[in-house]
């Protein structure tokens, strides 16, 4: 009797999961479905659940309306620079906080962590005014340079990882006459590939999705990122839902690919933010 009850329970769980999954996936299905339809098909009543044909017509059309290849390149460049910057800076700064003991270390670490509490909204206006003053408006500098100075979450994440690497390595290298920089560059950094992947993946995600940054700083057509370009497109082609959905699909695709390639690092990073944070 107990066994059949357990079976019933399992069935119930599956039913619930499937029902909820359908709800979660429906917007995706809807996006992809519409990206293959003509606008006439979209507007037919009663509603059509599947497109009558599958070709890349809408994708081609959308790319013909605006230089989306260029926007993709722009986004990719910013993402690449930020990934390099975040990985280098977080690993470098975290080395100081994790492997060395010196006066002021805890103070500066607390200072760094306190920046996680500052709402972005407060920094938006003064940062903009400063960047404008130094002539960096309409360049990608405001969107990339800060990454080279370490972000609190990344540094914290890497520091925790470093703490798990035995200090014997450092001691042995010091005896051999290595400097701390050599220890960082030759020993600790090569051992911390997993956490660097997490930092990289998070930076990719944050930068690719960023809308506010490009909105504030990039006004020139040839500098725009994909997010900004999609928003502009939505303003200019108000009811061309098929093209919009094609673009939304294209912009989402890199995220999905990266997610499936680096799922483990995603989950590790998010888990870390919840458990330690």
């Amino acid at each position, binding site marked *: 009797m107990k066994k059949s009850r357990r079976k019933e329970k399992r069935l119930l769980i599956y039913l619930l999961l499937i029902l909820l999954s359908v709800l979660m996936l429906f917007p995706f299905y809807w996006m992809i479905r519409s990206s293959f339809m003509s606008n006439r098909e979209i507007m037919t009543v009663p509603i059509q659940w599947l497109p009558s044909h599958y070709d890349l017509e809408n994708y081609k059309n959308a790319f013909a309306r605006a230089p989306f290849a260029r926007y993709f390149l722009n986004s990719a460049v910013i993402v690449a620079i930020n990934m390099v910057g975040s990985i280098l800076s977080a690993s470098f700064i975290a080395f100081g906080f994790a492997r060395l003991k010196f006066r002021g270390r805890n103070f500066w670490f607390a200072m760094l962590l306190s920046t996680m509490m500052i709402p972005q909204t407060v920094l938006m206006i003064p940062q903009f005014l400063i960047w404008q003053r130094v002539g960096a408006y309409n360049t990608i500098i405001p969107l990339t340079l800060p990454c080279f100075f370490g972000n609190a979450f990344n540094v914290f994440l890497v520091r925790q990882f470093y703490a798990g690497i035995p200090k014997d390595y450092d001691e042995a290298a010091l005896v051999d006459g290595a400097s701390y920089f050599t220890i960082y560059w030759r020993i600790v950094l090569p051992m911390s590939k997993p956490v660097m992947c997490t930092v990289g993946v998070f930076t990719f995600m944050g930068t690719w*999705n960023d809308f506010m940054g490009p909105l504030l700083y990039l006004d020139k057509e040839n500098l725009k990122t994909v997010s900004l370009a999609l928003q502009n497109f939505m303003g200019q082609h108000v009811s061309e839902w098929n093209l919009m959905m094609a673009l939304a699909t294209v912009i989402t695709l890199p995220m999905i690919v990266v997610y499936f390639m680096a799922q483990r690092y995603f989950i590790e990073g998010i888990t870390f933010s919840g458990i330690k944070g």
Partner: protein
Amino acid sequence: MRNEKKMTAKEKTQLKWGYFFIGPSIIGLFCFNFGPMLFSLAISFTEWDVITPKVFVGLKNYRELFRDPLVLQSLKVTFLYTFLTVPLVTCIPLLIAVLLNTRVKGMSVFRTIFYIPSIVPVVASAAIWMYIYNPMYGLLNSVIRLCGGSTHNFIFDPKEVIPSLAVMAVWAAGNTVVIYLAGLQGISRELYEAAELDGAGGIARFRHITVPLMTPIIFYNFVMAIINSMQTFTQSYIMTDGGPANASLFYSLLLYRTAFKQSRMGYSAAMSWVLFVIIAVLTALVFRSSDRWVIYENGDKG
């Protein structure tokens, strides 16, 4: 306290190298955080349109702010959204995580399905949901009409716009699910098995084991949800532009307009500080309430 001169050679090198390594972070702290914050505080006491020189006006911006009908409206919208969204994005992910934590086959597929919406770029998800909410041929209205209901305007209806945006927030709450899931996996199975032997049903086990042990994580997600909801910007900027009739005029959207469309830098800086204080007060209240409901294992805080 040790005298500088008594430092050993090793301590000296560590000090030197320490600042060498954390140097970039100290520069970053001043250039990108504390410096701009001080600057913002300073201009919040001025009237400034960027072109003509700043005029010191003392607390005028702050006084005007609380009489400004648009500011009050945006505060109302933002609080309404926060009060509606925060409980939803704190509780629903917990229930989903509990479901995802059961041991049945194929669970990793379901976990992926629930997480994927949260990696969709916010502009893309705004596009998708604008389309789904469309009154003419949006998915939701088509389904409602199929079921014999009448058309809803969703994001174009002053009464429905905030709940519509809240639904979007729940859809994209996959991060929270993952955080809960990690916490649930830390709870030992023995606790549940013992409770089951004592005859505790599913709901009793959830109430007396899961929820108490998860309170630190619920607390974290609760605080993050408040901070994020209070700063909502992109959805309203893209989907509704604050409309209809300012029913989705979020505080951050008004702030953006004041600063970057009207170039009223002093006034908008003052607005940003008011938001900062509101968020800080809300967070402090939650922290203060936490020793009444957050249970740390072994009485260990954090």
